[in-house]
């Protein structure tokens, strides 16, 4: 049995270690503090010498000792600054609006103004079917590698299959009777839990939060936040009318002349979204999380499918033969000790 403190400790394992750049920045800050400290000491000595012009030999000795130390401190600061610059160069490209396709491939200036677009989205909103199935292939790229997740979402039902290097890592989903099923391929275990189980969902879709609220719909494990067409189109409408998403032209995506929308530069999560002009549903989304370390980019290619029996069957998490059933928290905690 765990408690709230252990829960906090477990989640804190996700906090990244400081990067080389962070170490270098701290080293530079300390070096600067040392330099200021030495400069202050020099000033004090100089002032003291002027006020009390005695003990010439001692004063000379101090000055001889002080100058090299200060030189070393300045050199240390310069080295640290160079380290910061080198670390910055070593990091991968972090352009705010990196996207797929590349920014140079945009096909001209915005052809649709915001008011018109909001009007069109309103039309799509009223026409949106409430029960389409969203199928997303989400690719995550970081400096550490690439992982993929296939996500299915249908109202309150959802499933995420996460894999790395072509191998399944885990498969998780919530079925029609709010039963959570998780399968861990690394330990060949699975668990099932009845009851409503869902990650934190966005509650407000106001201008302040709409960009992050929209992006979270496409993160692995988050379709439980209800990625119904009506919700998605509603979020898009709010984002466009608030100015957090602006029209940046048209581009062809999977044969569709899609409208390209980009997020505000002030947003902590930089998004580029391509929407189908016929339905105003997104067909591709690129999220670049610039505030994180390491920087990562997620690309989601989205298909909106009809709820046929075959498509609905994809929402069920299968239990592979030979896998062992576990009680989730207990097994993980005990295994870590």
């Amino acid at each position: 049995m765990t408690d709230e403190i252990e829960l906090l400790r477990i989640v804190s394992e996700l906090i990244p270690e400081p990067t080389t750049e962070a170490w270098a920045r701290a080293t530079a800050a300390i070096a600067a503090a040392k330099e200021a400290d030495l400069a202050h000491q020099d000033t004090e000595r100089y002032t003291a010498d002027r006020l009390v012009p005695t003990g010439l030999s001692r004063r000379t000795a101090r000055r001889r000792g002080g100058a090299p130390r200060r030189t070393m401190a300045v050199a240390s600061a310069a080295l640290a600054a160079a380290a910061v610059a080198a670390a910055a160069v070593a990091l991968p490209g972090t352009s705010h609006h990196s996207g797929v396709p590349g920014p140079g491939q945009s096909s001209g200036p915005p052809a649709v103004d915001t008011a018109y677009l909001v009007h069109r989205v309103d039309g799509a909103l009223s026409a949106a079917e409430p029960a389409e199935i969203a199928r997303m292939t989400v690719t995550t790229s970081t400096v550490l590698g690439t992982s993929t997740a296939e996500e299915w979402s249908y109202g309150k039902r959802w499933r995420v299959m996460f894999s790395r290097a072509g191998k399944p890592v885990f498969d998780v989903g919530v079925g029609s009777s709010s039963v959570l099923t998780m399968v861990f391929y690394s330990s060949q275990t699975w668990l099932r839990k009845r009851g409503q189980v869902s990650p934190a969902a966005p509650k407000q879709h106001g201008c302040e939060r709409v960009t992050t609220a929209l992006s979270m719909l496409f993160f692995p494990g988050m379709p439980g936040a209800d990625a119904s067409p009506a919700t998605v189109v509603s979020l898009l409408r709010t984002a466009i009318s608030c100015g957090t998403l602006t029209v940046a032209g048209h581009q062809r995506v999977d044969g569709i002349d899609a409208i390209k929308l980009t997020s505000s530069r002030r947003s902590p999560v930089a998004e580029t979204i391509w929407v189908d002009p016929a339905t105003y549903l997104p067909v591709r989304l690129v999220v670049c999380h610039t505030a994180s370390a390491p920087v990562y980019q997620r690309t989601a290619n989205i298909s909106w499918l009809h709820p046929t029996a075959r498509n609905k069957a994809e929402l069920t998490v299968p239990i592979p033969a030979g896998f062992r059933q576990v009680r989730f928290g207990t097994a993980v905690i005990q295994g870590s000790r």
Partner: protein
Amino acid sequence: MKAERSAGEDGRIVSPAAFEAAFRLHYAPVYRFIAGRVGPALAEDLAAETFATAYRRRASFDPAQGSLRAWLFGIAVNLVRGHWRAEQHQLQLDARLVPETELPDDADAADRRVAAAWLAPRLAVALGQVTRDQREVLLLHAWAGLSHAEIAAALQIAPGTAWSRLSRARAALRESLGDFDFDLWVFSGPGTGQAREEPRP
């Protein structure tokens, strides 16, 4: 104690070598504590400023008044307090984004990491619902690993106050977590799928 070995023989950090050792030992934990609260980008600045401040004030550190790490985390906490909005913003982000995580080769460690990623958004919501003071003592205890006495030294409050504040904070967090099943590690029961309103400042 490992933390104290970073200091000079007298436990102080006045000499360059002692301060350098303290920096190497404590920088990463201090950075991660700050990064968890305000995000990695701002954490770079604040962690750097923590140690620059520590260097400037190194003569005032007295081992008799508390451990070195408590003193360093005390500086960090004061700096983070000046970025309350950034912390709120980070909590909002954490509540909405499932964090990206590298999975270790070890199966149990990988499961534990997946569980952490799974729980992080809900825990961020719960942390957003406790008061700032409560969040401070909770995270000093859970993330920084400070004891009651060290929390008291870091926050410059009486040990009894630190103990009661932490006790109340734990109760408040448990309350915020609502129907979390600490045995199964899942939320159950009606109406648990929605984030609650965060308290106004």
